[in-house]
């Protein structure tokens, strides 16, 4: 079993990846077969209208659902193999913390699930780092939405995964808290150069956090625009980028020009 972090962050390659659900006898195409590769160490945002299949795409990459066609390879391995060595971690809009465990126990649980020794000092240090120090021994029910998301992010990071999958992680918190979380947390994984796949419907969030923004069409999801984000952009460039992404979303894939 090789530790996830020795090899560096992995590249994610989806080949001919598609997903068809059957609901009550009818088949619904959630993701139209497509190819996508996400460079190692980059943060890539998937934006698209509600229900377009972007969460499904993330679940396919995480190995939580099996694709109807095509393959996902994470650093050349299947999602299942990567899961088994705790090489990936996922966070949802619902923090999905276990309500009967404290923040500390929730974070430590990830280490137990990853079959790694629980180092209490490291757990405490990470909880401090996400700003929950005073609340380490508090149960989720007593925390605010933003605090719960911080705890969920800490749980993701404690195993130092090479691939981080974020499904609307800050979708359920208010605008102000969201802005603060966006300011504080991404630095934690971007410093380590983790490959990150972020699903969001906030265009500003996508442009601010990512190296690359992929715009998806309404269901069935397919790529309609693909923007590289210049990290050194000034305010005017940034606004132009947000406008371009918005434009791509509104036009739904018709005559999109990449700036």
């Amino acid at each position, binding site marked *: 079993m090789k530790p996830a972090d020795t090899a560096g962050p992995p590249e994610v390659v989806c080949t001919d990846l598609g997903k068809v659900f059957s609901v009550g006898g009818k088949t619904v195409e959630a993701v139209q077969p497509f190819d996508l590769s996400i460079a190692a160490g980059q943060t890539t945002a998937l934006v698209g209208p509600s229900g377009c299949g972007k969460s499904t795409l993330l*679940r396919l990459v*995480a*190995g*939580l659902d099996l694709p109807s066609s095509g393959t996902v390879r994470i650093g050349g391995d299947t999602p*299942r193999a990567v*899961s*088994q060595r*705790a090489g*990936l*971690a*996922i966070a*949802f809009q*619902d923090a*999905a913390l*276990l*309500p*009967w465990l404290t923040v500390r126990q929730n974070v430590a*649980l*990830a280490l*137990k*699930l*990853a079959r790694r020794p629980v180092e209490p000092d490291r757990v405490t240090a990470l909880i401090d780092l996400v700003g929950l120090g005073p609340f380490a021994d508090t*149960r989720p*029910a007593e925390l605010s939405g933003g605090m719960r998301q911080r705890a969920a992010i800490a*749980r993701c990071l404690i*195993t130092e995964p090479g691939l981080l*999958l974020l499904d609307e992680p800050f979708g359920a918190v208010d605008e102000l808290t969201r802005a603060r979380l966006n300011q504080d947390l991404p630095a934690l994984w971007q410093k380590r150069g983790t490959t990150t796949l972020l699903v969001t419907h906030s265009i500003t969030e996508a442009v601010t956090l990512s190296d690359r923004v992929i715009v998806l069409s309404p269901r069935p999801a397919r790529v309609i625009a693909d923007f590289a984000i210049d990290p050194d952009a000034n305010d005017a460039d940034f606004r132009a980028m947000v406008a371009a992404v918005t434009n791509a979303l509104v036009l739904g894939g018709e005559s999109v020009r990449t700036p």
Partner: protein
Amino acid sequence: MLLALGLWQALALLTSGTFILAGPVAVGGHILGNAPLLVRAALTTLQSAAIGFVIGNGLAIALAVIAISLPRLERLVSGLALVLFCLPFVATGPILRVIHGVGDGPQIALAALATYYTSYLCLMVGLRAAPASWLDLVRSYGRGRFTELVRVRAMAAMPYFIAGLQIGAPAAFLGAMIGEFTGAERGLGVLSIRAMRALDVDMSWAIATLAAVIATLAFWFFGWLGRRLDAAPPPLLIAPRQDATSPSAGAGLLAALVQLVAITALVLALWIGLMEAFGLSPFFAKRPQDVFAFLVLAPDAAANRSVLLDAFWQTLSLTVPGYFFGLVLGAGLAVVMVLRPAMAATALPVAIALRSIPIVTTAPLIVLALGRGAVGTITIVAVMIFFPTLAACLEGMRRTPRPVLDIFDSYAAPPWQRLVHAQLPAMAPAFFAAARMAVPASLLAATTAEWLATGTGMGSLMALTASTSNYALLWSAIVLLAVTASIAYGLVQLLERRILKTFASEQLAL
């Protein structure tokens, strides 16, 4: 389904000649051969059950509305409801029979008693399930509590109420059958007693099968009704939340004592009041003072007590092991099924269907199979508790939040880790709800088995005293069993609150 039928037939063939088991072929043939008789009996029982069901639910609605409208009285009402639920059918049945004479009265009364408590619990949870914002909306238009109750709370309670009806419908059928055991003229219960006395194995199994089918159909009907009304099944049968404020330990103890005294006083007042109001003869309608005299003041009080307690210990020594066996087996099988998900998918509907079978009606069969010793009675108690526990535990674990399980999957965590860290804690509220409801059920099963089959313990004592008109002893038995059941129920609830405080605070607060 076919597999189960095949297994049943094979078992029957294996045990043929032992007068224990009739296979599906024999049972089917017997039902067809005696169709007019069986259908007439079933319709009679069904009618009693239906009337009792309506009355029981009316009672449940009345109690719940009182408790919700007058929050100060809630604990009192809940306590009274519990004591009423803990009355042993084996004793109340014969007494109702004496009061009412021949006819449908006792069947209907027992059907109502068997039904109302689950409905009451479900209503209490449901009437509180309305989000505060809905209630605020009503108040913002200047409307009062009545509008709140009718427009908002009643609507929010609907899915919970239907879930209660679903569990209550088979119970009503069971109550009606037990009522018929006490000496009705017609009905499945009467046929059941007759078949057992005549060692008519085919008939016994035919009746049990028919009762099971009817109870299961009733269960399905209310499930279908719930879906038709678009009332999604509510989370669970949870302990009704008491006050939102939790007093300090000392004050809590004092308040609990005051409550206990108040409930006792209320029960005694109702006991005396009802008897006087209906002018019931003191010969068979013993008052509390008669019971006290019988057990404490009379010259032979010590002898009376020892007769009662001997039977009591006998019953308890069978009920307690049966209770724990049933709980452990139910929860254990649920865990096994969850570890083998393919099994759970097929087993859940079967378990839910089997839960609705009036198990006590099969008591004679189990005793027939396992003999009149301790094993038979313990098995009946365990079986009575096993199916509801299994169904509740499976349902509880099924409610583990999907994202939580996804987190476990994203680490490729093995099934036992999901079980220990997520599914077992998620199961806890359902398990305790089942354990609570199983307390009176286990005493009912044990006393019914003793009454109908083994001839030992409280069940037999109560049947005997009813037939020899030793009513003081009978009433003492009722008091002892009702108090025991209420205390045991309270203890389970106390343990439940302790554990859920840690494991499912958010579910307690529902």
